[in-house]
């Protein structure tokens, strides 16, 4: 009894420990989507009790998906980069065995039910060419001393097999002209001969065939040795059966898959996609090319956007009607994954390219039709210059009548419950309209697979997708080698008579632009080409007469062009300076660009140049967000004087990393004025190495790095101040002003963890205090108030009121983990954007998982809490009103009686 009481008391003491987010608020403002990545290997388990799919992906993820829905049942994430890349999966009855890694191969067995690790062993294999599993043995094929050698290991224990087989390999012509399929190695000779030899047994038999080919590829997952030999765009299917090489011509541009049905019969399944929205499947018997009608189908779906599908794994069975039907797991070049039922349809579809997001933009939704009509009628002329408003009395009256009619119609429609008709002006669903607080937006994401998505930010639903096929390729980020996609929102949703416009820059022989109408993904103007190579694109601070934010494009000879060309600007832009940093040669150049109001005959002149000599490398440039506003121009000290902030909108932070003999690597932060080219300040961090993240906002900077000496992540914080006197309150100029260097406050903090991404919150007016969002490798998304990273945190006695004394370690309280129990793995970046509410900032985290939430750094001071009790307020007010009237009457009656006495 007593122990029960103690137990109950203990339990209840845990009830109120967390106060970051209430349980009922979980999932109310946020959503998370789990992904696995582009599928590399897969296997279908049709066992009735499990009915699962097992996949290993390019993102080094091993996962199990439900065959009916495509939902993730379990997911295990292996090491990042080549150390964790999955080379092979092998399903057994109770385990999924993966072989991963490059120099050190790691073999792991995962439980099929829940993904728990059963065993793990590793071995060194620096020269491995191919790996395959046969008879419960892992075969490691490598090439040494003109011999092909095969090591075998027992798959589950890692015990090395008897001996190393060796094969004479005079016909081995290099791994690019050879392929391994189902334990057989096939190589194309220089003199036009195809040799196929089995590597399973120690025999020297090899089969030969006269065949000229350019390229040989193994058919993935084939149960018998089967290859596709391509010769001048003619594809031939070569396979080995009963020790004979057989050749079958194959239809070009379709992907093949061989499925063993009934021990000695093989089916050839072929899949192709002649158009983005169509999938064509064909099934035939491998030997005699007899077409199986039930497996041949063609399916079109307008919402589908795929390219180059290939069957990753399949399962066939015989139905009651005695026809063959199959399920196939299809992965496509655009990294989507789908389960295809043959004959029949697509059962489910996963957009795995969302794990490779390279650029994100939040786009405001257009206003609803009624609001648009009201805005047209009463809207202030400044923000709605573009619509043609006639001010005649009669036309105003007609417009009034018309808008009232429209309102009436909508009212009837809602009252009668008529299904929402699509909006006329926007052509989208009527719920896709701007809300009062600007919280509903569209997330436009560009993925490295060349697919662009429009995602509803409230529920994560994919509204549209665009597949860029044959348009161009992405730029490459020369610092990290990843693709980069410069995207500019050239026109936002505020201009009623024009639709919003997003422009994506792609490269080909001639640089190309893709316009996207970000609300429904249509590409109205399509693709535009310019006859020069663009090296830099900078949006102008003014709009042109069509309300488009024009881009200044620098070509490779550093001459500027306006885009869209020949459209006059609405006003003369301020003096414009553009800097270009080249990470390969370390050159930084600053140009002044003269943009006449007509938008023609632009000219640029180099004004400054800085060179970082090798081996110093520019690794990051941090500039302030163009949307950012700084509300407070100074900081109040304890003696009530003001320390004015040094807010230079032209200042950029440049991080360089250089190897050093004594300090391993030296990280240098330069603060550079992009207009004058003056280096305002620079600071050196010794023994700092990757991962490095840089944040530049308001008058402060944060730079996180790994300290090799102390072996921990440190965050250096800098803050710039003008001093006690405001130099020029009305305008800021980088040239001609006083050249007094700013006061730099600096301090370093220790982060007990490793960072994956770091980003400050941003709000519309900049009144709300700033928080820093940090994604750690443990899957947390941490919201740290900037006050904790303030370099002015006092070392001794706190002098300023409310100042937190300096403690080097940053706190990581569980309440400030805004993703609560939804771990975010492999975060690539965080995107923050303001909403129309000053208190609220919208956050989108992308990586292997997508996570969206909103944060209020200074609490939601401008809205009532969602648990505000409206009912009580209404009841209380009414009771008070009624009682006031009642008592008034009673009092007057009493007074009357008193008077008659």
């Amino acid at each position: 009894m007593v122990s029960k009481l103690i137990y109950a008391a203990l339990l209840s003491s845990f009830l109120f420990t967390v106060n970051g987010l209430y349980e009922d608020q979980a999932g109310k403002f946020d959503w998370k989507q789990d992904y696995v990545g582009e599928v590399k290997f897969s296997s279908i388990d049709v066992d009735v009790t499990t009915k699962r799919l097992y996949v290993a992906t390019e993102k080094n993820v091993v996962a199990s998906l439900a065959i009916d829905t495509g939902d993730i049942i379990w997911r295990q994430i292996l090491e990042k980069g080549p150390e964790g890349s999955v080379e092979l999966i092998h399903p057994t009855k109770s385990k999924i065995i993966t072989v991963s890694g490059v120099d050190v191969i790691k073999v792991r067995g995962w439980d099929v039910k829940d993904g728990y690790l059963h065993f793990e062993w590793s071995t060194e294999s620096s020269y491995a060419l191919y790996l395959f599993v046969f008879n419960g043995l892992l075969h490691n094929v490598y090439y040494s001393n003109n011999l092909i050698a095969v090591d075998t290991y027992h798959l589950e224990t890692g015990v090395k097999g008897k001996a190393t087989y060796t094969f004479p390999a005079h016909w081995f012509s290099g791994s690019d002209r050879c392929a391994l399929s189902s334990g057989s190695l096939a190589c194309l000779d220089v003199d036009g001969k195809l040799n196929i030899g089995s590597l399973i047994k120690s025999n020297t038999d090899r089969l030969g065939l006269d065949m000229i080919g350019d390229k040989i590829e193994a058919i993935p997952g084939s149960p018998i040795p089967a290859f596709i030999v391509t010769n001048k765009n003619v594809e031939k299917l070569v396979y080995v059966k009963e020790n004979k090489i057989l050749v079958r011509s194959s239809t070009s541009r379709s992907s093949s898959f061989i499925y063993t049905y009934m021990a000695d019969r093989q089916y050839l399944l072929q899949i192709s996609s002649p158009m983005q929205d169509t999938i064509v499947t064909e099934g035939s018997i491998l030997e005699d090319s007899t077409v199986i009608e039930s497996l041949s189908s063609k399916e079109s779906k307008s919402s589908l956007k795929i390219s180059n599908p290939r069957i990753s794994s399949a399962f066939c069975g015989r139905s009651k009607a005695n026809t063959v039907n199959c399920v196939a797991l299809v992965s496509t070049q655009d990294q989507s994954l789908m389960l295809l039922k043959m004959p029949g349809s697509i059962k489910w579809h996963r957009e795995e390219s969302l794990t490779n997001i390279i650029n994100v933009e939040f786009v405001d939704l257009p206003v609803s039709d009624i609001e648009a009509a009201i805005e047209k009628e009463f809207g202030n002329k400044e923000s709605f210059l573009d619509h043609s408003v006639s001010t005649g009395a009669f036309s105003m009256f007609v417009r009034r009548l018309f808008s009232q009619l429209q309102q009436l119609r909508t009212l009837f429609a809602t009252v009668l419950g008529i299904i929402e008709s699509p909006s006329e002006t926007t052509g989208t669903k009527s719920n896709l309209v701007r809300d009062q607080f600007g919280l509903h937006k569209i997330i436009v994401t560009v993925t490295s697979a060349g697919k662009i998505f429009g995602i509803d930010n409230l529920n994560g639903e994919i509204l549209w997708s665009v597949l860029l096929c044959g348009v161009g390729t992405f730029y490459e980020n020369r610092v990290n080698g990843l693709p980069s996609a410069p995207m500019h929102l050239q026109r936002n949703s505020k201009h009623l008579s024009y639709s919003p416009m997003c422009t994506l820059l792609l490269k080909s022989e001639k640089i190309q632009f893709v316009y996207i109408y970000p609300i429904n993904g249509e590409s109205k103007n399509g693709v535009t080409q310019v006859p020069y190579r663009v090296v830099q694109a900078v949006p102008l601070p003014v709009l042109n007469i069509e309300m488009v934010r024009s881009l200044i494009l620098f070509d490779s000879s550093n001459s500027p062009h306006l885009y869209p060309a020949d459209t006059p600007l609405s006003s003369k832009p301020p003096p414009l300076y553009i800097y270009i940093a080249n990470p390969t040669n370390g050159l930084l150049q600053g140009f002044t660009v003269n943009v006449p109001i007509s938008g023609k005959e632009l000219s640029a002149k180099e004004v400054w140049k800085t060179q970082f000599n090798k081996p110093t490398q520019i690794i990051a440039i941090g500039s302030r967000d163009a949307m950012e506003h700084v509300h407070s121009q100074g900081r109040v000290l304890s003696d009530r004087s003001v320390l004015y902030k040094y807010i230079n909108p032209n200042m950029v932070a440049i991080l360089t990393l250089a190897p050093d003999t004594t300090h391993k690597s030296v990280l240098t932060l330069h603060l550079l004025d992009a207009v004058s080219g003056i280096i305002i300040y620079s600071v050196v961090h010794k023994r700092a190495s990757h991962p490095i993240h840089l944040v530049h906002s308001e008058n402060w900077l944060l730079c996180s790095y790994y300290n090799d000496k102390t072996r921990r992540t440190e965050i250096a914080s800098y803050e710039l101040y003008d001093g006690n006197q405001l130099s020029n309150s009305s305008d800021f100029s980088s040239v001609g002003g006083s050249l007094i260097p700013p006061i730099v406050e600096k301090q370093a903090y220790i982060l007990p963890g490793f960072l994956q991404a770091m980003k400050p919150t941003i709000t519309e007016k900049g009144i709300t205090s700033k928080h820093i969002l940090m994604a750690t490798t443990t899957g947390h998304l941490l919201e740290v108030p900037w006050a904790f990273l303030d370099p002015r945190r006092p070392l001794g006695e706190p002098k300023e009121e409310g100042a937190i004394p300096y403690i080097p370690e940053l706190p990581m309280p569980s309440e400030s983990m805004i993703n609560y129990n939804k771990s975010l793995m492999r975060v690539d970046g965080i995107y923050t954007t303001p909403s129309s509410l000053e208190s609220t900032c919208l956050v989108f985290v992308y990586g292997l998982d997508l996570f969206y939430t909103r944060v209020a750094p200074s609490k939601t001071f401008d809205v009532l809490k969602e648990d505000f009790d409206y009912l009580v307020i209404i009841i209380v007010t009414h009771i008070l009103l009624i009682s006031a009237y009642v008592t008034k009457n009673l009092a007057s009656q009493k007074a009357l009686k008193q008077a008659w006495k």
Partner: protein
Amino acid sequence: MTTVKSKTFKWSLDFTRNKHEKSTDNVSPPGYSQLAGQNGTELTRDSESSRLIIKKSWDLALGPLKQVPMNLFIMYMAGNSISIFPIMMVGMLIVRPVKALFTLQTTFKTIEGTQAWGQKFIFFIGNCVNIVLALYKCQSMGLLPTHASDWLAFINQPTRMEYSGGGFVLS
């Protein structure tokens, strides 16, 4: 009865008379002129009332000044912390003299005389002294916007004279 008695015996003294009964026909002592006395009292009464009025109006005029030590004491007791009671006291300290200054004309309506202007002036000075004291209190409490930090919120973001942009070279 008594009158009869007194008439009958001119020099007799009646001790049986009731104490409380006032004699109405007491004879004035020799050499006493009622007229002269009457004239004198009239004069003194008149000068007395005007003296009183002047005294009273000086009291009124000096009132605010007399409050100063009291106010000083209250201010000392209230302390410099900003909380509801000190704020209320400081508010009273300011509001009262300001109100008094606004109602100066009505306060001095009844007061006339040669010294009225001086009294008004003194009253005004006294209230001013009180206001100054209250302001000093505000100042020591830090309620007056005398520092640069108090005007910080009104400084606008400076306009950009130049516009810059750029980044890594696209390749």
